């Protein structure tokens, strides 16, 4: 099939960008969205044009590299998946698809669809760790954890740090990411040592990076490829209140 792509092209942060139209022919329904971009890039390179830069790595929805806003939705229209898991069988011959990078002041654009997400790394480094020496793997029953806590912590730990929550948030807030990273530790015994310090430092770092305020739109949960609940944000606020009072 033939897909009409409108892709954001921008040489670098200091040059203005624009949407450029491409007609991609010979797209197979079995291709993933990223494979369609590979296909486009091959065509561009054959013509001697610059290929479209986009982030990718595992291509199976676990690395959090791919970041594309597809027709106004982070990771595209499919629920609970990253852009790499979206397949072209969901599109029809002749469809027009608009592809843009994550838009957030805290994620400066590098080139085309690639943005710098190291703000997330700095939030994580501000407190998303434990300093206790855990030693060798203990027996499974040595540290009892309630089933519900274990499940919820695991759900939060599924965050791949892709940044879709920020991209989709009308305010470009990083609350879901930061909330998941904080609450995952707060639920587990290993996370207790730095519990208060962690939430305050990570929340302050989130602010420093220039992410927006949360308005409880819940769009982040809707686009999250790991379907992390905004309960993580409520828990972050609870943790924060406990830490400052």
């Amino acid at each position, binding site marked *: 099939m033939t897909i009409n792509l409108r892709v954001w092209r921008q040489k670098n942060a200091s040059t203005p960008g624009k949407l450029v139209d491409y007609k991609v022919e010979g797209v197979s329904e079995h291709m993933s969205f990223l494979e369609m971009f590979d296909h486009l890039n091959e065509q561009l390179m054959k013509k001697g044009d610059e290929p479209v830069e986009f982030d990718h790595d595992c291509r199976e929805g676990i690395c959090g590299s791919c970041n594309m806003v597809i027709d106004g939705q982070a990771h595209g229209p499919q629920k609970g998946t990253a852009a790499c898991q979206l397949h072209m069988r969901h599109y029809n011959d002749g469809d027009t698809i608009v592809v843009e990078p994550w838009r957030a002041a805290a994620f400066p654009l590098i080139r085309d669809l690639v943005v710098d997400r190291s703000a997330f790394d700095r939030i994580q480094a501000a407190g998303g760790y434990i300093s206790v020496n855990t030693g060798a793997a203990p027996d499974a029953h040595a540290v009892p954890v309630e089933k519900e806590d274990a499940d919820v912590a695991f759900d939060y730990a599924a965050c791949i740090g892709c940044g879709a929550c920020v991209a989709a948030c*009308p*305010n470009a807030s990083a609350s879901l990411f930061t909330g998941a990273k904080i609450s995952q530790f707060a639920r587990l015994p290993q996370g207790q040592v730095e519990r208060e310090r962690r939430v305050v430092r990570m929340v302050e770092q989130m*602010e420093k990076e220039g992410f927006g305020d949360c308005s*409880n*739109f*819940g*769009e982040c*949960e809707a686009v999250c490829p790991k379907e992390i609940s905004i*309960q993580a944000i409520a828990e972050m606020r609870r943790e924060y209140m406990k830490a*400052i009072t």
Partner: protein
Amino acid sequence: MYSLLTAFQNSVGRKILTGVTGIALTGFLIIHLLGNLTLFTIDYADADNAFNRYAHFLHDLGWLLYVAEAGLLTIFLIHAYLGVAIYLRKKKTRGTNYEVVKSRGGASKVGFSSRTMLISGSLLLIFTVSHVNHFKFGPGWSGEPEYTQQMNVGGETTEVRDLSKLVFETFNQQYEGAIFYVIGYVGIMILLGFHLRHGIWSALQSLGAMNKKLVPVIYAVAGTIGILIALGFLVLPIYIYFL
């Protein structure tokens, strides 16, 4: 270890404060509505009625009333300031705007009420100023004889303001311009309904009173409470208009 003061320099603190002040304002609305409900039962021709007595009781609280009013004004201003601040910040945090934006639906709460919080909030702020000016500081505030009545309060003859008369003259069809007041009030109360539709559940989420299973329930319950409050307020001018 960490002080409350630093909390309001970040997004989580601002959100908590917005939630606390929002809940307080909702509480005020409920009390205000309960007071207003007496307007459904009274005889407007008789100034010695439950509404005027309730208004007099509040007025009689003296310094307590001033404290409550000052508190309410502070809460109102903080809430409005934070709303505007959050909106202004959002312009900066997005950077470049998207060419295409579409909500995913599903768990998303993006909709008319959540996207118009600043607009509904700003109009409510303007409305509140005019509302207080019209009723509290309106006719009868400085003891005009046609809006005051001698009444027996706790065994003593006291001069009480006839506020129900002002309410009646504002909204009843026999008075000129009443229809515009009715339409205006109904319109603003519909906006209040939308504001509370997102506001009440959002405040609970901001205060951390949420878990995954509760979200749909609280979202529905909060919406119902918001709509009921707005409905309670907006039925009243219509009722008085047709009296």
